[in-house]
């Protein structure tokens, strides 16, 4: 039996995020085909796949930013029909509003999550959120005065300020240098493990190592059209130490297995395409 094949079956009705036979097409071209996925509350799941496999689209569907073509999407048994404060999103491009100070970027979220509070109270809370991501003194600054990594910290703080139980992260550290990337990965892990109840995280990445370091479970997506090719429960205990983890032979073996699975998928696709083309020429 393949060690990778551990399709999850946590299907407590009405709990967690649920994706059922989801199909999404853009201008008639299928982007996602027959996606079935169940994510438990408090689980950390990475969507892993090459560029263009539709993992970002899947995340946007979960966020309610796109409308699915067919199938069903639900959170705690309720069908997802549009964006909601229950699902906060961190995008790859640091998506702060550049004309607002960092504090105001966060109070914008707080005004939604704590509607009956006054401005001053929100400003104080905003500073607390900034402190949480290590930017306590920068409340009056504007995004353009910050590096990419710092901006992404603020984006995370803003999503936390929304108080969403679900965090959807779309390659949030894709544009960062390795040092900042590592720091922010640890920040996300801290935030995730310290919150009670734990937040449900769906994290999109194309970095195998990142997915193995962060996730409870890795969902691998193949491309053209996007579909789940394999799921895998990450066997490493938490808290994970980056240095010892990456030097483990099991870690490296797993990394190699995943890469191999993607290679297979690409080869299969190429074979299938050339078969179709060859056939067409014969006729």
């Amino acid at each position, binding site marked *: 039996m393949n060690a990778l094949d551990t399709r999850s079956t946590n299907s407590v009705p009405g709990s967690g995020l649920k994706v059922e036979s989801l199909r999404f097409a853009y201008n008639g071209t299928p982007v996602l085909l027959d996606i079935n996925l169940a994510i438990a509350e408090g689980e950390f799941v990475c969507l892993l796949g090459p560029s263009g496999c539709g993992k970002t689209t899947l995340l946007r569907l979960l*966020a*309610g*930013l796109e409308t699915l073509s067919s199938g069903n999407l639900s959170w705690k048994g309720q069908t997802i029909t*549009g*964006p*909601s*404060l229950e*699902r*906060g*999103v961190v*995008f790859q*491009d640091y*998506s702060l*509003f*550049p*004309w*607002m100070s960092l504090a105001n970027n966060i109070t*914008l*979220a707080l005004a*939604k999550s704590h509607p009956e509070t006054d401005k001053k109270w929100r400003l104080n809370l905003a500073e607390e959120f900034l402190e949480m991501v290590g930017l306590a003194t920068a409340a009056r600054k*504007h*995004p*353009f005065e910050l590096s990419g990594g710092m901006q992404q910290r603020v984006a995370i703080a803003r999503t936390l300020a*929304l108080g969403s139980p679900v965090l959807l992260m779309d390659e949030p550290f894709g544009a960062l240098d390795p040092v900042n990337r590592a720091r922010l990965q640890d920040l996300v892990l801290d935030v995730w493990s310290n919150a009670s109840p734990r937040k449900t995280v769906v994290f999109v990445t194309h970095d195998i190592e990142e997915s193995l370091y962060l996730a409870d479970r890795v969902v691998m997506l193949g491309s053209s059209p996007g579909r789940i090719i394999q799921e895998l429960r990450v066997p490493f205990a938490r808290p994970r130490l980056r240095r010892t983890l990456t030097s483990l032979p099991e870690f490296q073996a797993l990394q190699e297995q995943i890469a191999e699975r993607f290679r297979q998928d690409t080869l299969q696709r190429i074979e299938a395409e050339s078969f179709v083309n060859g056939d067409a020429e014969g006729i």
Partner: protein
Amino acid sequence: MKAIMAESRITSSANVPTATRLQVKQTAKPSGVRRNFWLRLQGKEGALFLLGIVLLWQFVSTSIHFAGSYLFPSPVVTLKALWVSLPELLKGTWSSLIVLVPGYMLAVVTGIVWGLLVGTIPWVSRMFSPFARFASPVPPTIYIPYAIALLPTFRTAAGFVVFVGAFWPVFLNTAAGAVSLPQRYRDNARILGLKRTEYLWRIVFPASLPHIFSGMSVGLVFSFIMLTVAELFGASAGLGRFVQLYADYADYPRMVAGILYTGAVVLVTMELLEQIKRRALFWVK
């Protein structure tokens, strides 16, 4: 030891100000002196060009005696005329601005609000776009005689044409800015659950500000054109009226002074707008 010495030499040469180092380099070459001369003129090209124009003006106006040379007063004569008519010009500025500012402000406010609505709400856009496509290219000066005939006072007529002249550039640019709102701002606003008015006021409006300000500059220039042209038609005071009046009296020194003065007023107003823009757009790289 050698390395340290080399390093100290580098740092000592790095301490020499860049300008001096450049000059040293320049004079070392055979054509150094001439090059140095041009180098010193750098950044003063604009002033030099203006000086050249004034000199040429002085030369032409004093040396050529053709039939209509009284039409061409020299810079000194013009300057004197400007000095003499300064009180009248200041009064004229006031009566021009009192028409221009309200008309322009109204155009800016309505142009921005309407532009944001048209740029974000599809049915408003579908409703208004055909009309805008027809009405916006009409040269606004064409309305002036009719506005003067139609409206009770000259001020309201002039104010109206100023409004029409400034509205279209502001509106069109605002709408274009709202339409081209980056997807990521839209996504973030939706994620944060912003309501329509919040979305318009706190996201679409500031994001469109670069477009809005270019519309406002064009609109301001148009306002001045509209106003001065309207004043040529039938004002009792104002900058355009001043020029028209002295043209009628064939007092060309005063007329040229009026033109130069109007140019200066427009320049100062544009600079004021530029300052506001710089402040408002501090976040644009």
